[in-house]
């Protein structure tokens, strides 16, 4: 029997083990087994964690938006949707941050600068800021339903706002047709083990996301339950005080 109570179940433990194994394999393939790129040299190794990171961020934010939409449109307004949305948003922020850092380092090596003002990078930075705002709104306090409604609307607004910002920035940067030393759209020819490593990265990070979101939303559930219990206790003690 489980001695310690936690957010884990046997299913998540198995998932965790699988994720750990895959990530270890990824590190080995990425750093050791796979070959260097003809053009990029060893910096291509950064791609095996950079691409999966931003991939997970996108998945996370899509899930946040979908769960927010489901919460707002459903009659039952089950808070499960809100909690998954919140957990997913938090994970998304972390992975966007990771991808911005790894991408920035990649740029430093490849182009000599930590940052370029191109559409994709700028939009990614905006994505990060927007969801930092989302997390801040979730911490505004109030009832669980207020939190769910406010952050839900915000997540849906983000679905509209992010493409608009991206388009505007693209329009803006197209004015600056300087010689692209920093060609962020450079296609890299991947084959064999390199391609496998990339897929491995995407799959293992996706499973990692699943593990993280399961646990995080359970923790949110517990936090909400504790808060509710505290509230109930406060109401009861208030009532007791009233009945002198």
């Amino acid at each position, binding site marked *: 029997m489980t001695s310690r*109570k936690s*957010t884990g179940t046997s299913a998540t433990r198995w998932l965790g083990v699988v994720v750990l194994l895959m990530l270890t394999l990824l*590190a080995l393939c990425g750093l050791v087994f796979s070959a260097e790129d003809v053009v990029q040299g060893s*910096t291509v190794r950064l791609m095996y964690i950079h691409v999966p*990171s931003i991939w997970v961020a996108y998945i996370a934010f899509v899930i946040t938006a979908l769960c927010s939409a489901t919460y707002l449109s459903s009659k039952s307004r089950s808070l499960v949707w809100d909690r998954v949305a919140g957990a997913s948003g938090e994970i998304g922020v*972390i992975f966007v941050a990771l991808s911005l850092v790894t991408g920035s*380092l990649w740029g430093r*090596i490849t182009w000599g600068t930590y940052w370029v003002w191109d559409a994709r990078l700028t939009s990614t930075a905006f994505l990060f800021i927007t969801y930092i705002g989302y997390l801040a709104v979730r911490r505004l306090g109030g009832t669980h339903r207020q939190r769910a409604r406010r952050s839900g609307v915000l997540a849906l607004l983000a679905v509209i706002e992010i493409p608009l910002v991206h388009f505007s920035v693209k329009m803006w940067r197209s004015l600056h047709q300087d010689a692209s030393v920093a060609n962020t759209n450079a296609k890299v020819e991947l084959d064999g083990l390199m391609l496998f490593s990339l897929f491995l990265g995407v799959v293992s990070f996706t499973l990692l996301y699943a593990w993280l979101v399961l*646990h995080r939303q359970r923790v949110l559930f517990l936090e909400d339950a*504790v808060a509710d219990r505290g509230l109930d206790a406060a109401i009861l003690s208030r009532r007791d005080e009233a009945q002198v």
Partner: protein
Amino acid sequence: MEHATFILGSYAGTAVSIALYAFWIIRRGRTLAEHATDAEMPWT
């Protein structure tokens, strides 16, 4: 490997960040679960 510091640093940094986050989640879950009734933990 050229730029080994950057590359190994990135892998390590990513791994450490994710590991810290994961540990934080698990620990928080254990702390909260200690005082929770079974009704409050529908996944068990």
